[in-house]
């Protein structure tokens, strides 16, 4: 139910939504056909929703099904809208709101390039070991670390590398599944 407020509203609704914004991870199962990603992204851009992270890959070659994992931010009402709007797209099988669905696992991979010499270099390598990052490439001047884990862990690793000669980062975006013996 709406409660009347003092603000002047509009024939076009531009009053502020007082609900808090939340970050949700959605898992979108789609037919892997040409243009399907454009449909999903176009819908999100066209309706003014946010994307914080997006990953896409085919998960069943036989059935041509891809899984799109996207992280978005919005009020509960907006998140519900995004879910239902995505479900309206013809090639979309189902949309699972993993965040609303309960505990789930999120993982991301990042390649982190650090250039440095001397103490900084030693420190970078020490931290990488502490974070269980692998050395994917190295020379006497640089390292490329490969780190996997929760996005927050990767954020933290990157911020620690900053003073140690961080020059570049490539992140895959989040892959996510629900915990437990559920199918999602």
């Amino acid at each position, binding site marked *: *139910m*709406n*409660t*009347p*407020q003092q*603000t*002047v*509203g*509009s*024939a*076009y*609704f*531009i*009053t502020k939504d007082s609900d808090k914004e939340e970050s949700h991870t959605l898992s979108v199962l*789609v*037919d892997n056909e*040409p*243009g399907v990603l*454009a*449909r999903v992204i*176009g*819908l999100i851009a*066209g309706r003014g929703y946010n994307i914080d992270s997006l990953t896409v890959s085919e998960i069943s070659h036989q059935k041509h099904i891809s899984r799109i994992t996207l992280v978005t931010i919005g009020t509960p*009402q907006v998140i*519900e*809208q995004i879910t*239902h*709007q995505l*479900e*309206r797209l*013809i*090639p*979309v*099988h189902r949309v699972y709101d993993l965040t609303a669905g309960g505990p789930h696992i999120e993982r991301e991979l990042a390649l982190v390039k650090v250039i440095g010499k001397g103490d900084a270099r030693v420190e970078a390598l020490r931290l990488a070991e502490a974070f269980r990052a692998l050395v994917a490439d190295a020379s006497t001047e640089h390292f490329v670390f490969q780190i996997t884990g929760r996005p927050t862990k990767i954020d933290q690793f990157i911020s620690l590398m900053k003073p140690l000669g961080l020059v570049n980062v490539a992140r895959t975006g989040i892959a996510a599944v629900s915990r437990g013996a559920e199918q999602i």
Partner: protein
Amino acid sequence: MAREFTGAEIVIKALAEQGVEHLFGYPGGAVLPIYDEIFQQNSFQHILVRHEQGALHAAEGYARSTGEVGVALVTSGPGATNAVTGLTDAMLDSIPLICITGQVPTALIGMDAFQEADVVGITRPCTKHNYLVKHIDDLAKTIHEAFYIARTGRPGPVVIDIPKDIQFASGPYQSPKKVGHSTYRPQLKGDQNDIRKAVELIAAAKRPVFYTGGGVINSGSAASQLLIELVKMTDIPITSTLMGLGAFPASERQWLGMLGMHGTYEANLAMHDCDLMINIGARFDDRITGRLDAFSPNSTKIHVDIDKSSINKTVKVDLPIIGDVAHVLEDLLRIWKDKSPKQNSKARAAWWQQIDRWREKKCLSYKPDAEKIMPQLAIERLYELTKHEDTYITTEVGQHQMWAAQYYRFEEPKRFMTSGGLGTMGYGLPAALGVQVAHPDSLVIDIGGDGSVQMTMQEMSTAVQHGLPIKIFILNNSYLGMVRQWQELLHGGRYSHSYSEAIPDFVKLAEAYGGVGIRAEKPDELDDAIKEMISVDKPVLFDCMVQNLANCFPMIPSGEAHNHMLLADSEDIGSAISEKGKVLV
């Protein structure tokens, strides 16, 4: 081995098998093979329009007045881009359409070839779905699937983009398979428990109101019948959106008139003060709700909609029911009759008394004028003189559209075709063409404005060529009247570019096209002129010269709630909208 057909032949076969009898189109290089097949077949009739936008609106009028899928055929590039307005219009008003577009040969796609446009890219946001057919083997299946998607669930436009080489290629033809789709499965039946809850809420309500929309009409004639039964049985007042007019007969006592920005006083106040709102197939559009935070503040809300994304989109509801209107109403009526719940007759009587007091405001009254034809009078007379005919009404967009919705009274669904969601000037004339094609012996009238009709006027030529005696009833106020009204309200009466100085002589224009022109300038000429228009068996441009500064009331101004309405006798409309409201549209 199964017989092979060319792509163009497959298109024709598939359309025929889908029951298509009429096709609105315009040829060009990229669809010539299909046109060649059209020349050699007689399963359907092709209506040559004068602009692709006209083909799409004609297909819309055809679809809305029949409940069938409307079909358009256009060429690549400019043909397809000209179709975009019609597609968007159909998308917003949930009209089932198929639009076949020619495309450059597959090998040239992406090469900036002559008349190439990224049609699936351009039309992605303005269609329910679209296809680029890259393999001849997919063609028949794609066309059948497109029809299924266009007509089921929440209907909408579907584009099939067919490269020219696919039209020439040979492949097998397949008949439509069993209905169904691997990912697209519209939900028709509502949740029974929720419907039971709805019955309880309705029975217990003290001040209920039905708020119905285009979904009732899209659901088919049965839905209207069920709605009438439900409303009469429960004796609950009912209002409707622009798109839903006709689903419930305007002559019944429960009818409150249209609601929303230009809705009636009684409809809007009933919405504002109700304790239970029963939304059936409407979508809480912003022209309906006005100021959202003051929209029906104290009501419990039930929302029946086939599209889950309509639920809680703008207005949070208490009891959503996902399903097709006819299915849900059927279950609701059955449960109601099983239980025969007792309604609170005392509270209901008080509610009706309140409504009668609002009705006494006579919000649609206007000052008569002895010299000039008042636009409201023109519609009233048009209604009186055509109500016993088999009449279909389309409109353009502007003041005349709102006057049509207010003063013409619709008794049946599918009789009123208007551009509600997109508000497309130029919709009504070609839409009337489509309606006339579907109903050749009916009286089809486009209530137009002098501005709007000039956007698609060239379709008069189509009407003459195909012997379609559409009547274009123009409320000529020499203004882009609705723009002028807003400028009067919001911009200190500075009429920036809303006055048309060089309006053509519509009578001569009609004659130039080979139609008939009729003009009425005085109230006492009106009836005879309208009768003449009805009797003419040719396309007519009726130039109805009306009082040119009349405004459309009631009106809920920007930034206001339903209970703050401007009525016809409001004195100074220039100061009616608050400073804050003026920046809103």
